């Protein structure tokens, strides 16, 4: 059936055009070396002095990543930041998603709207707003001093804490929405059955609700974790000198050092380090329910 094939082909075409082709462009640049030219890297296929074709491959960019500790530390810092962000988002987002899913049906759209509403304002403006809140003479410090809880302003801005606050704030909706959709679909009679069989509410939550919402937990965590690893706007604006994240490193290589090959190498390494384990995890998840 050609119609069917066309429908299936459309998303693949999209992915090939906007994901696979750019990836290969980046991969190609990462195997090149920087030169002062436009574009600022050596072409993949060049001509040697004697006029013959030659292939210019420089895989040493990849070993360079390991020779400089900065890159390894930045990778680890990013993974840690993203993991903490995903975990805190889960801890905050689960009760929120649970309450929305259990709210009366006429309230649910309004509550969901509140979760999505921040997206109506530009992401950059919202991050700048956090500067206004967290800075030395900002809203939070002035408020706490006015309350008399503290006498000296807290140094939150440009620290690891301010980066966490910004990232958790920015990514929380991505955790809530998938959690909500799994919790909302759950059959309430399962909880009644658990209660009927002698399970107290907490026990029923741990044995029924939590395991059945696991797909939502995994989906939400991935949706937060993956973009959070590559995040560079929040650490740039809210972070301090000690905030070392791979997104920032990549940005600096590209725009300040104008070293496109190294920047591309950092990007490819990021994909290999993240996407491959994610794909394995997703495959395990897809096979899980049928096997066990």
């Amino acid at each position, binding site marked *: 059936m050609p119609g069917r094939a066309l429908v299936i082909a459309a998303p693949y075409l999209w992915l090939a055009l906007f994901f696979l082709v750019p990836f290969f462009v980046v991969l190609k640049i990462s195997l090149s070396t920087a030169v002062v030219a436009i574009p600022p890297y050596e072409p993949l296929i060049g001509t040697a002095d004697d006029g013959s074709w030659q292939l210019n491959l420089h895989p040493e960019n990849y070993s360079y990543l390991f020779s400089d500790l900065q890159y390894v530390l930045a990778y680890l810092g990013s993974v840690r930041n993203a993991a903490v962000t995903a975990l805190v988002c889960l801890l905050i987002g689960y009760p929120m998603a649970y309450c929305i899913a259990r709210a009366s049906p006429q309230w649910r759209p309004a509550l969901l709207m509140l979760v999505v509403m921040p997206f109506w304002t530009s992401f950059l403006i919202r991050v700048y707003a956090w500067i206004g809140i967290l800075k030395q003479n900002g809203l939070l410090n002035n408020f706490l001093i006015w309350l008399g809880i503290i006498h000296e302003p807290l140094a939150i801005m440009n620290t690891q804490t301010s980066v966490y606050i910004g990232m958790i704030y920015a990514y929380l909706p991505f955790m809530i929405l998938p959690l909500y959709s799994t919790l909302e679909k759950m*059959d309430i*009679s*399962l909880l*009644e*059955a*658990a*209660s*009927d*069989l*002698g*399970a*107290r509410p907490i*026990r029923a939550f741990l*044995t*029924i609700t939590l*395991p*059945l919402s696991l797909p939502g937990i995994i989906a939400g965590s991935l949706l937060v974790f993956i973009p959070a690893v590559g995040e560079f706007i929040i650490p740039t604006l809210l972070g301090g000198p000690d905030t070392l994240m791979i997104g920032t490193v990549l940005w600096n290589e590209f725009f300040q050092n104008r070293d496109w090959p190294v920047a591309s190498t950092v990007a490819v390494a990021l994909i290999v380090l993240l996407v491959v384990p994610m794909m394995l995890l997703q495959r395990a998840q897809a096979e899980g*329910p049928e096997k066990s």
Partner: protein
Amino acid sequence: MAPSVRETQPWRDPGAQPFIRIDRVTKRFGDQTAVNGVSLDIYRGELFSLLGGSGCGKTTLLRMLAGFVTPDAGAISIDGADILKLPAYDRPVNMMFQSYALFPHMSVENNVAFGLRRDGVEAAEIKKRVGAVLDLVQMGEFARRKPAQLSGGQRQRVALARAIVKRPKVLLLDEPLSALDRKLREATQFELINIQEQVGITFVMVTHDQEEAMTMSTRIAVMNRGRIVQVGTPSEIYEQPESRFVADFIGSVNLFEGTLKQVSGDEGVVASAEAGGDLVAGNCPGRQPGEAVCVAIRPERVQLAKRGAAGDVPNRLAGRIKDIAYLGDSCVYHVTLDTGKTVTVTMPSRGRWADQPFAREEPVDLGWPPGSSRVVAA
């Protein structure tokens, strides 16, 4: 083995102690009264059915026994203990849900073991009891399957096993067979009765299917608009309906509206415009002349004959055959009386379809002995 309650009939004994006592229970949802002052005594070992159409309050009553709904007024006790103080997870009842509500992420044996684990039963004991109850419902070989890998009938068995494994004092069944197809449902009805008699648990079942209630129950409570309209054994409900609603709800019935003219002993004479004259009906206890009543007569009790061939039948009415439906084992005739009223008559099929004695538009006489009919409240 103790004699079944089907023989001992404790509800006939005024001194017998009821096992479940529901006392003037009321539940409102907003401005709707789902259950309205219901009182009911159910005895140990019964298979008791709450029968009624959708929205009659039967499910709300069952959920109050389970603990998912709290009554606004009234009391419920089981085996002498007030259960309304207890949360659902502490009540000595278990429920078989209409959707079965099997835990999709657990195997059959873990579903069945769930309740025993909550009670802190020892692992070895759990294994033994889960194995025994799965054998009882013939699901032993499916113990490691997930609910999604079972057929509808198998899921129903697992749900039953999960609900009886804790040996509750009362098992509540919410439309237990409604998800099964007709053949399987009929076979399962008898199996459920057998299992109930083997385990000796008191069953309270909600159903909208009158055949199911008739086949399985020791007694039936017919409900309408939040009230119980009649309680009785299946044959009492069928043979001695007290109201037009019950007569109409259980099986099919012909109803003649009229006024009670006179009562002598058990017999009453009803003037009915629909019948075009007076009808003599037996079974007219405790009614006063002048009351608006209905005469109820079951289609299979009406005698049908060719015009002039009926002889001296009481309650003779003249009519014409309008429709004939051949059901295989029986024939249904719709007879239009001279007054315009249509009467349904069923007769067992004798011989082949071609030999059936009546034709459409044929003039006929019908009638019935007074004892076959009954006077019910209009």
